[in-house]
């Protein structure tokens, strides 16, 4: 499964995508988890406990006449993940490519998108947490994905943002697009909301105090609140997506 998450800031993208990555790692085998948000947060919901330095060295990129920024020829994406991916719980490998630790040459991070695009290992899943909002939500970073999940809270601003993101996703016609409604509090019908947004409903995650508490503590919901209603709901949606194919 190659899955990217987008959504408004605060919609719970990182919480949902981190939990999805952990469940995939338990159920289906190794997972490459990517944080490409310039304000990273995925490391917490994956259960790493802190935000590590987990980037790729910038000198792996070179500018080539005619093709722009590319990865140097002698390294493969699989080698780079093996070498630089931080090991997380359940055998996850984690890379953080949105926030670069120091000044980088303008445009050079494009080469790292190619790393993600070309990373293919049999049996592995790739889960990406993209930048918040509609600002450069795609900017090439979703190009690795075969499926794109829009995470939305059922607020007016949340649903308006989801509608904008759905429109923006029209430039990727070959990617399966779906809606995950997060922090639902009982009001409103998920099916009606999804129909109004014109997207298939992949899952509904209830508002959950236990998950909110684990976020305040910087802990992964799947570790701190494994039996919470929200984590259970994310488990169900991952299994449904698995049944729906790769």
């Amino acid at each position, binding site marked *: 499964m190659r899955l990217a998450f987008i959504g408004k800031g605060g*919609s719970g993208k990182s919480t949902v995508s981190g939990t999805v990555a952990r469940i995939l790692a338990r159920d289906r085998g190794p997972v490459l988890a990517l944080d490409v948000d310039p304000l990273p947060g995925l490391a917490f919901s994956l259960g790493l406990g802190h935000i590590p330095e987990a980037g790729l060295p910038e000198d792996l990129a070179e500018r080539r006449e005619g093709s722009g920024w590319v990865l140097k020829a002698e390294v493969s994406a699989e080698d780079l993940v093996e070498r630089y991916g931080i090991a997380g719980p359940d055998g996850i490998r984690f890379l953080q490519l949105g926030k670069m630790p120091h000044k980088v040459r303008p445009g050079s991070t494009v080469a790292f998108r190619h790393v993600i695009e070309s990373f293919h290992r049999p049996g592995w899943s790739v889960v990406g947490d993209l930048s*918040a909002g*509609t600002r450069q*939500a795609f900017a*090439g970073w979703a*190009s690795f994905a075969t499926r794109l999940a829009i995470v939305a809270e059922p607020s*007016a601003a949340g649903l308006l943002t989801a509608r*904008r993101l759905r429109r923006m*996703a029209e430039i990727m016609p070959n990617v399966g697009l779906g809606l995950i409604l997060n922090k639902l509090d009982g009001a409103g019908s998920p099916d009606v909301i999804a129909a109004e947004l014109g997207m298939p409903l992949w899952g509904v995650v209830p508002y959950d105090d236990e998950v909110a508490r684990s976020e305040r503590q910087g802990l992964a919901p799947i570790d701190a609140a494994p039996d919470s209603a929200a984590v259970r709901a994310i488990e169900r949606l991952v299994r449904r997506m698995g049944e729906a194919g790769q």
Partner: protein
Amino acid sequence: MKIGIVGKGGSGKTTTAGILARRLARTGHSVLALDCDANPNLGIALGLGVDETERLAAIRQSLEEEGAEHAPTVSEMLQRFGAQAPDAIRLAVVTKIDTPNPG
């Protein structure tokens, strides 16, 4: 008084800005509210409603798509890319709204 409000996504920037603007407007200040977010939702927090908020965003976006002309002065900008919000607040969407770049 010129106040900028910044913070992480989901921290409540827009909600805070909306309440602050309405409060200032009700206590005798003339308020200009600027939505500087590439995903502009301040209209909703100010009480302008979803449709009008989206209409403003679309007007601003048409500038990038060359369907609208840039405003040569500040007052024309507020006229062209703005709307009247409750408590006599003038709201304008001023930042560029990103369109996806397949890269």
